[in-house]
């Protein structure tokens, strides 16, 4: 059995320690907000926070988590509320198909936690690993700036 803490809750899962966190979340814990895109940390669709850092859950073996806290989109904001990044995403109408947006939001929220008023270069650095095939990038950048303003 492997123990992990996700969104403030402790879970025990019967999983191969090699199983990536993504599949533990989705298939074993039923937390399906986090998406699969590439399986090789190339697209960012599976981004969650591990110990507060934006992390590609498709490439992190669950056995290697240690006691680090995992936060997924389901735990980003308190129940019934929206994180400022989620609100900015809605305000700018960022999503098209929406599939990659959970990963985008998790990357953006980790960025803002570290840099409350990020520069465009910091946004490039933090968001460059999150692919969007629909091409919502200009709105993502604008929404991050809005969310940063909202948090000031």
């Amino acid at each position, binding site marked *: 059995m492997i123990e992990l803490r996700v969104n403030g809750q402790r879970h025990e899962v019967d*999983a*191969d320690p090699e*199983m*990536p966190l993504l*599949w533990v979340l*989705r*298939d*074993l814990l039923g937390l*399906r*907000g*986090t*998406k*699969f*895109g*590439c*399986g*090789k940390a*190339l*697209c960012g*669709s599976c981004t969650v926070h591990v110990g507060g850092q934006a992390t590609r859950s498709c490439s992190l073996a669950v056995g290697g988590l240690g006691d680090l806290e995992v936060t*997924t*989109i*389901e735990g980003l904001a308190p129940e019934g509320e*929206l994180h400022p990044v*989620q609100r900015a*995403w*809605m305000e700018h*109408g*960022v*999503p*098209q*198909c*929406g*599939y*990659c*947006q*959970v990963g985008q*939001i998790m990357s953006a929220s980790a960025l803002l936690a570290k840099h409350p008023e990020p520069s465009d270069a910091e*946004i*490039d650095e933090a*968001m*460059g*690993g*999150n*692919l*969007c*095939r*629909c*091409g*919502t*990038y*200009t*709105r*993502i*950048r604008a929404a991050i700036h809005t969310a940063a303003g909202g948090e000031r």
Partner: protein
Amino acid sequence: MSTPITSSGPRPSRRALLAALGGASFVLAVRAGASPALAVLRGSAAPDFEPDLYLALASDGTVTIIAHRSEMGTGIRTSLPMVVADELGADWDRCRIEQAPGDRRLGDQNTDGSRSVRQFYQRMRVAGATARTMLERAAADRWGVDAAECRGRKHRVTNEATGDSLDYGELVEAAAELEVPEREELVFLAPGEGGIVGTNVPLADLEGLVRGTATFGLDARRDDQLYAVVARSPVLGAAPVGYDAEAAEAVPGVVGVVELPTFQGAPLFQPLGGVAVLATSTWAAMKGREALAVEWGESEHADYDSVAYEEELAETARAPGKVWREAGDVDAAFADAGEADVHEADYYVPLLAHAPMEPPCAVAEVAFDSDGNVTGCEVWCPTQNPQAAQDTVAGALELERDAVRVNVTLLGGGFGRKSKPDYVVEAALLARELGQPVHVLWTREDDIRHDYYHAVAGLHLSAVQGEKGLPTAWLQRSAFPPISSTFAPGAREGGAGEMGLGFTNLPYAIPNLRVENGPADAHVRIGWLRSVANIYHAFGVCSFADELARKAGRDPLEFLLELLGPDRHVDLAGVRYGNHGASQEEYPVDTARLRHVTERAAKMAGWGRELPAGRALGIACHRSFLSYCANVVEVEVTKDGKLSIPAAWVVIDAGTVIHPDRVKAQMEGAAVFGTSLARFSEISAKGGAVEQSNFDSYRIARLQESPQEIEVEVVESDAPPGGVGEVGVPPFAPALCNAIAAACGKRVRRLPIADQDLSWG
């Protein structure tokens, strides 16, 4: 999603609708039926309801609108219901949207070809207006006044003379007793009168998408489902000749290994075949597949090499082909021309993969009778084409169509890939085999290696330049493996569909013109991808126009406008040209509209302004899917050849527009999609096998590689609606490459730009 299917097979009726209607006791519903005389269902509790309707109004005033087209990011699940609600005079906040399963009675559901609004705008208006008219008449009866005095707006019918008003919910029961108005009796609202069409209401699924609660195909679940991945042949058409099932079954969590039959004949929408591994988690299935070590048999495509193929294609494009359009005497014009006046160029666009962020996936559950015979199948899948999924699953399981129910989830991108339901059939076959629900997932490697690829194309263009460099003769030829090769083995000539996508409908005013196509064999499955043949045709045509301008020392914008010629409807009499199934009377090839978007985009971009060395603008315009689009792209090329895209300006004229912000979003996305194919994306093959496998080798544009600003204007128009989703893509790559030529003097004739040398100075 938790309703179990019964042993008598799924009944594609009632469930979604009854759930949607909740406890409403009375319903007025406008059925899809045969237009224009739409039937109205009436009755209490609606026990006989079938989901073949566009609109239902319950006695509590709740409006349920059926979305029968698939949502893959265009916003169609919001915008078509907006048309219904607008014409109904509804309060948008009291409307709810339900996704329809595959059902022929709803009309066409194949969400491709940028035609959802075009094909259904009028039908949706009729549905809304029919119900509103009946509500207005019911109110008139109640008040004993002429119905002409009663207007349905904002969910109430108001007597304009007295000021009396009644909520729609209060009128439902009486309205349902009335005769259904004929189409001719309907009075449609004026633009803007309904207060919904033309506004930017939030997407129906917006909050679920940012919360991560929206359900994509990846997220569909059945109790006790197994997870499956399939090992497929790297070379098209090879069958497995050996594999280690025991090693796969030894992986903890793996519960079965199943060989799927290799497709025979044309690929169609059949599964490719291969070896499936089923497990209790996706990860276990993947590990099991790794252990299979499949050996593959022979295939006629094993010699396919994309480098050699590229050369052959270029040769084909340089040789005379089948003539698709001819005007004047091209041969005489070339024979009479001096060598210096002739300009020639060859262009190339490689195979492209769709690579939607959600790869193909589906869940299937099969029902059996007590003798173990298959009686029905229900699937949950991200499909652009639920009716094709229904038909193909029915065929594979030897069931009647109605015994198959196809539930449509949200699509994590489609771009044409999810019009082909091969992956849905895989799930159905495996669910039958295992007697248990099965979720099939394609990994990214599966998706990149086994796609229905956008056709590789070679183009040859040549022109005779006369006064002011304008062409007096123009010959254009394309060669590509046709989409028809996926449906008929050996098909190797382009069809009217592909040739009509930006080639036979060339809008330029040129006295001597010939359009030709050359044959090419397919060695992979070829399919349609967002914008289809417009991608390579526009790249060749719009690049070549720019080349002619530069060779003549002309301003490319001014030259392009002269090339478009006088405002007119392009005469395509005698040309085999489908115009997307629309008449040229209603949807002509209108050069005035093309000119307008071009001039407007140039103005937005500040065409002609001074820019520092290495920075420049490029322009291209293209009509596709009955709409008009121009792009201006600004590039910066450093002396050592590093490319960036500070900005792009897009103008689209799509006629009547439902949701302007979603049209803008589609144009922004198209610029990024165009950036991907222009700069990075290429599928190549060696020994018949695709060489790319994931986003490291099949590159799509990242945030910092895409245009940093994209400004979009949507032309206000009351012309009939044209397409939107695909229209922005074709002009982007040529506008980008034209900008590069202006910035550094290097002409890109082969996509992607990738690491081509752009250094200068």
